[in-house]
């Protein structure tokens, strides 16, 4: 059980980061404001979590300008996709183990 717990990805142990990853996994690309609106976050909060994901190599950040307005877009990386799937596998293994090891019902 303890071994299974160690396979849970700490980077995803956060509501915001889970939300960002989920959105980026089903959308090819999202920009900062889209993420902010959909997840109902402040600028600073979102920025710090996307920085964490970027540092982990799970998302790529592309900064551009539309006229004078900055446009920051995010995409999930193949590594990020794999890490998320591994995370789901770990959760599934944990649940199955929990199912197996649960105490028997009192008769």
């Amino acid at each position, binding site marked *: 059980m303890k071994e299974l717990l160690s396979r849970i990805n700490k980077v995803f142990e956060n509501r915001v980061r889970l939300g960002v990853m989920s959105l980026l*996994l*089903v*959308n*090819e690309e999202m920009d900062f404001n889209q993420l902010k609106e959909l997840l109902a976050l402040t600028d600073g909060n979102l920025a710090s979590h996307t920085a964490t994901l970027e540092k982990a190599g799970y998302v790529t950040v592309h900064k551009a300008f539309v006229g004078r307005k900055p446009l920051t877009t995010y995409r999930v990386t*193949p590594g990020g*996709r*794999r890490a998320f*799937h591994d995370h*789901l596998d770990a*959760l*599934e293994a944990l*649940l*199955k183990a*929990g*199912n197996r090891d*649960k105490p028997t*019902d009192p008769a």
Partner: protein
Amino acid sequence: MEENQDPLKDLSEIRSILENNTKFMSLSGLSGIFAGLVALGGAAAGYYFMQSNGLWIEGHPDYRHLNQGQLFDWVTFSLLGIAGGVFLLAMAGSYLFSRKMAQKKALPFWNRSARQMLMAMVIPIAAGGAYCAIQLWHGQYEWLASNMLIFYGLALLNASKFTISDIRYLAFLEIALGIASAVWWGHGIWFWIVGFGLLHIGYGIWIYYKYER
């Protein structure tokens, strides 16, 4: 006992949402470059074939002999053979480069999104192929280039929903070229060369530098 089944079911639902909403991201720019080069090669082969048979007049292919009441002749067959060869070679190259890219990124290759993309392309291309074949059968070879370009552009437009969205712009360009080819009558071969050759090479280079460099 029932409670523990739900999270597992949730997980498999999450997985199928992920699977159903992922696009085919293994499309390589190299496929485009290769397809463009093959198309140019095919055009060159067609040119040498026509010229060596005295069918190239004043910078244009001469199809006049085709209107002599024959349903199919060896010239048509040879040109069709070249076109078919270009198509198959380009498809094979696309397949190989995409598979290599999927392996490099450790992504699944033949999954739902790959199938969706392929099906999205197959129908417009099959319709276009049938239509062009029928036109050829009726001796209306002058419309071939523009129809090929338009049907191909529509196929790409459909496929762009299931892969990288940049393909949409290539789709628009091919459709525009097809329409332009119908307007600037009699220069189909050049529009064909630009649409299937040069555009693919240029696009392939752009995609390659954008995603794979």
